[in-house]
């Protein structure tokens, strides 16, 4: 099993190299094969490793493969090495499995696009970097994966580079995440200077030994790591880039901006949970950020009109839940929600992609409607995804994972009632916007007169070959069945997932007795999500007159516009950072300091002009000058 591990990230990287460097024309079929096969192979290898892990776990349930020492200067000796433990295994499963499904889907979705090869090259680069990120044993090597993921996200968002707006969105994503990465870098500096090593396990061990709980160093390190995570996972205040990242093709949004990259932040915090344990202040900050983000993003999603932006804001919101879980110490719950979210959010995105394709590149959900009959498969899979997102009780994986998070928010010692209430309100909003999309897109009468072919067969047959539909079905089953392995505590059912992660991520210390202990909170949450679905049905399917009245109200108009623009963060950052920067650089086009220094040249020229006039050519002036000189000489002689 040792031998197998290095190949998992190796295959996608090789695929990237082959696709990027191969000159000449490659037939689309060959591109598709070299694009998808390696990741599928990695997925297979991961399954084998998982099987081996479950069956005969290696000693200490850890598998590490070391390649070489990156650089060795005095005490600084980071290594290029992989470290597989249950946490990275789960992440690897999600990345490779969901990744290969999405690659399969994009074989057909991107067919006929110019730059087909470039697309698969970048996707494989992404998957390879993500695997490096998840598997690396050294924080510095993790940074390689971390930035590699950022780079491939930049390349894929700006895939259609023809339109400068896509380029702008790509740059925005890379720069905003880079702000977070710089904070992470400073964190690394601090960690190495204080603890003398960057190897994750080693650092965590020495952190526990060195730093007292709540010590300044621990809090600083935790906060820096957190800001790196916030940048990558698009949490407040660095979340403005994700909605614009929808400029990339839909499979990109599905893979990077739903399932894997944005969850890298969650993985990082989970991986360094020891530091967060030592810094309760930082953990509280994480929880607050999580709660604030899930509410902020939920409300924004409610007002969006572009189907992909709704899902983008919903991703931000769901990751808010994960950060909330991390904040209250429920590490494995966060990872469980991460996995479930990967399944149903990827499903939603892929289904949305088909909807957009069917509607002829139309993104605005207000101009869609009644697709229920036209796209049955897409409708049912989208419905399952939306239900899972809305945590429809008992049936969907979303219910089990979100319920675990919400339950632990209340029962964990680090959690509190206020966070729980926020989480529940978030759940309500989530169900609202999830089913708003379902009702607007699939129910009601068709709004638009866009080119929708007349005959259903033709429409059904249009472009939805097996390659597009199979991933949908697989993800739909996962979105439903994915949750059964981890039933809620109160039910006494199997808790396979948290047990699997137990050695790496300890369960949070829970409060005893009282409201938290009882089953009441779970029932409340379930009831709320169902009620929200019905409310959404009322609001958006039946569209009663009173609702129209409220919609016209100016206050509601202003509020929805505000929510539409992501609560004005873009304008805020534009005013605070972008405009001063542009003003400064435009102002500084001519090199100010260079101009300063070249005033010496100007002075020389000025002096020359002055002295020129003294050479008037008239002899009498020269005699006068000479006599003036004599006088001066004598004066010096006298006065000295």
């Amino acid at each position: 099993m040792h031998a197998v591990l290095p190949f998992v990230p190796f295959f996608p990287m090789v695929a990237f190299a082959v696709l990027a460097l191969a000159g000449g024309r490659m037939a689309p079929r060959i591109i598709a094969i070299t694009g998808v096969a390696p990741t599928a192979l990695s997925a297979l290898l991961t399954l084998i490793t998982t099987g081996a892990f479950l069956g005969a776990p290696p000693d200490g349930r850890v598998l590490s493969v070391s390649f070489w020492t990156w650089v060795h200067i005095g005490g600084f000796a980071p290594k290029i090495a992989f470290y597989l433990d249950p946490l990275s295994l789960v992440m690897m499963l999600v990345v490779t499995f969901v990744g290969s499904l999405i690659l399969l889907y994009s074989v057909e979705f991107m067919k006929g696009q110019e730059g087909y090869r470039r697309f698969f090259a970048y996707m494989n680069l992404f998957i390879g970097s993500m695997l490096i990120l998840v598997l690396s044993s050294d924080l510095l090597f993790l940074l390689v994966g971390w930035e590699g993921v950022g780079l491939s996200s930049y390349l894929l968002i700006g895939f259609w580079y023809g339109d400068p707006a896509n380029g702008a969105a790509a740059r925005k994503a890379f720069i905003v995440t880079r702000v977070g990465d710089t904070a992470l870098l400073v964190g690394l500096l601090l960690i190495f200077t204080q603890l003398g090593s960057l190897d994750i396990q080693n650092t965590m061990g020495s952190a526990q030994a060195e730093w007292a709980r709540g010590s300044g160093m621990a809090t600083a390190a935790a906060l820096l790591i957190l800001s790196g995570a916030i940048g990558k996972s698009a949490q407040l205040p660095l979340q403005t880039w994700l909605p614009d990242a929808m400029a990339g093709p839909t499979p990109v949004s599905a893979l990077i901006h739903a399932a894997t990259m944005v969850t890298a932040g969650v993985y990082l915090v989970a991986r360094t949970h020891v530091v967060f344990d030592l810094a309760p202040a930082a953990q509280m900050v994480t929880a607050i950020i999580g709660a604030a983000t899930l509410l902020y993003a939920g409300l924004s999603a409610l007002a969006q009109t572009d189907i992909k932006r709704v899902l983008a804001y919903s991703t931000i919101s769901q990751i808010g839940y994960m950060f909330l879980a991390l904040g209250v110490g429920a590490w494995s719950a966060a990872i469980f929600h991460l996995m479930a979210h990967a399944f149903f959010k990827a499903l939603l995105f892929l289904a949305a992609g088909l909807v957009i394709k069917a509607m002829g590149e139309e993104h605005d959900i207000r101009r869609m409607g009644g697709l229920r009959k036209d796209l049955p498969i897409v409708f049912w899979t989208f419905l399952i995804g939306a239900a899972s997102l809305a945590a429809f009780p008992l049936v969907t994986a979303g219910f089990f994972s979100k319920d675990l998070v919400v339950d632990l928010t209340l029962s964990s010692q680090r959690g509190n009632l206020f966070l729980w209430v926020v989480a529940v309100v978030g759940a309500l909003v989530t169900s609202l916007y999830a089913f708003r999309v379902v009702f607007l897109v699939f129910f009601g009468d068709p709004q638009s007169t866009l080119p929708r072919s007349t005959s259903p067969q033709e429409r059904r047959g249009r472009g939805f070959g097996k390659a597009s539909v199979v991933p949908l079905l697989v993800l739909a089953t996962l979105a439903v069945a994915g949750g059964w392995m981890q039933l809620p505590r109160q039910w006494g059912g199997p808790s396979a997932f948290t047990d699997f992660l137990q050695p790496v991520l300890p369960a949070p210390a829970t409060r005893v007795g009282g409201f938290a202990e009882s089953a009441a909170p779970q029932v409340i949450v379930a009831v709320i999500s169902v009620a929200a679905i019905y409310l959404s049905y009322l609001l958006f399917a039946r569209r009663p007159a009173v609702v129209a009245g409220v919609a016209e109200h100016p206050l509601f108009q202003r509020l929805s516009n505000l929510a539409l623009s992501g609560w004005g963060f873009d304008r805020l950052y534009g005013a605070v950072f972008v405009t001063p920067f542009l003003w400064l650089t435009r102002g500084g086009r001519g090199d100010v300091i260079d101009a300063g220094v070249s005033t010496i040249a100007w002075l020389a020229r000025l002096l020359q002009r002055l002295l020129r006039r003294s050479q008037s050519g008239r002899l009498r002036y020269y005699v006068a000058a000479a006599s003036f000189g004599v006088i001066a000489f004598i004066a010096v002689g006298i006065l000295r």
Partner: protein
Amino acid sequence: MILVLLIAVPFAGGFVALFTARRSPQFCRWSALASSLAGLGLSLSLWVRHFTGAGGPSAGTAGSRSMVQQVDVGWIPQAGIHFHLGVDGLSLIMLMLTFALVALGVLASWRGIKDRIGLFHLLLLWTAASLAGVFTALDLFLFYFFFEMMLVPLYFLISVWGHEDRRRAAIKFFIYTQAGGLLMLVAILGLYFLHGSTTGIYTFDYLQLLGTALSSRAATWLMLGFFMAFAVKLPALPLHGWLPDAHSQAPTAGSVVLAGLLIKVGAYGMIRFLVPLFPGASFRITDVAMALGVAGIFYGAFMAFSQTDLKRLVAYTSVSHMGFVLLGIFAWNELALQGVVLQVVCHAFSTGGLFMLAGALEERLGTRDLEKMGGLWSHLPRFGGVGMFLAMAALGLPGLGNFVAEFLILLGTYRVNRPAAIVAAVGLVLATVYALWFVQRVFHGPSPAEGTTAGPGPTGAPATTAAPGSAAAPATATASGTAEKPRLTALRRRADLNRREVAMMFVVALVILWLGLYPQTLVRTAKETNDDLLRLAPPPTEEIAPNVSTDLMPLASPVLVPPAGKNRP
């Protein structure tokens, strides 16, 4: 003996190139390439013999332990001037860098230079000869001699084969460096006489001058003399005026040599001469120098972003990267010094690559103006790929050499001056801004041929909700009609990088990747020199003892509690 050859070969090669040029330009180019590769071969042989042998350099010869080979012949004995060359890890790295980049420079101007080819290659090879001299000179007088000799051929390179404003740029370059050089000469003479007066031996020999006892005031003034000369070359912030002009007006080979090597003389000089000769004085100006370094990082980034001339943009990026070098030098501990050496080499290759790319683009498009470029990826995919790779190297993508170098520098600086390290780290974000802006304006955006319609017809994804249907992309400023870019529409598939250029870019990319993933080769070579230098000029305090005051992390939340942990380097 090899050391003298290192200088003689390129020098003679210059003559050969000049005389063969009359017969056939191709033969002249090949002979120039041959002599630069010969130099490279010589330095590689030295490196293989001394640094890849039994795990480290053989016992150094007399004097400083790290000197691997020395040649010491009396030149003007009465004045104590010796033709004293010596090579150790650091100078060997610089030598290999010199010959490699000169070879790349010759290759880059294979088709670019058409008139007076012989003279061009003569000047290029003489620059290489004087650079070899600078990096191996151990006699301050000899060092100054080569330091000045280096300027003359490059001045002519810029002023004869340069672009539209070449004469002014060449003169500005010459005056800047000459003024700095003269200050250094004064400092050298000052040191010479002070040493003579205290010890009675009047000599320019670096090894003997090392330990001179100087009054703090004299040391400061002499140090400032050296600092000015190297700060001009490095370009530290206020003295960088010459760099953008010289780079944008120089021919491709000129700017490759300028960016790759001449700038490094500043860094090499500071490491080799400035701090070891005046340890006390240099550590007194550490804070000022680091502030200059950080200011340089930011200023370079801001200016790079606002340029419309491609080569000026790349020139300002090197001002920004050299800000890191200045930071690393004055952090003066093992990590920072290794970072500086790595940054010097990686920057030479990444910026050299960018200049070769800019030169190739200028050959094809006939312009350096970014406004006239845009959407080249669809027509020049190889250009795009290489441009993207080099941009990533410039912004310090982990996995490439620049990142490891900058990380080491930040690590080293973090121990000495925490705020400087943190602010410099923030500078990395600005590096991202200008690197991506460069890629956007040159390669992305609507392709010139179609003019108004979007490049490769994106069938999906209007970016923002406001965008109407995806088909009619708005005519942006860069694609203002095809009339303005007649030349671009003539781009044919064949205009992309040809085999020679791809080979060059491949070498550059390989080196950057190699230094990114396995920099140990370089670290091992420079290790001996760094230990020696740290022995000569021990840093003021081993480490800032982590007392409470410096530990208050500016970023930490207000709920900070003074740490109980002890610090383990």
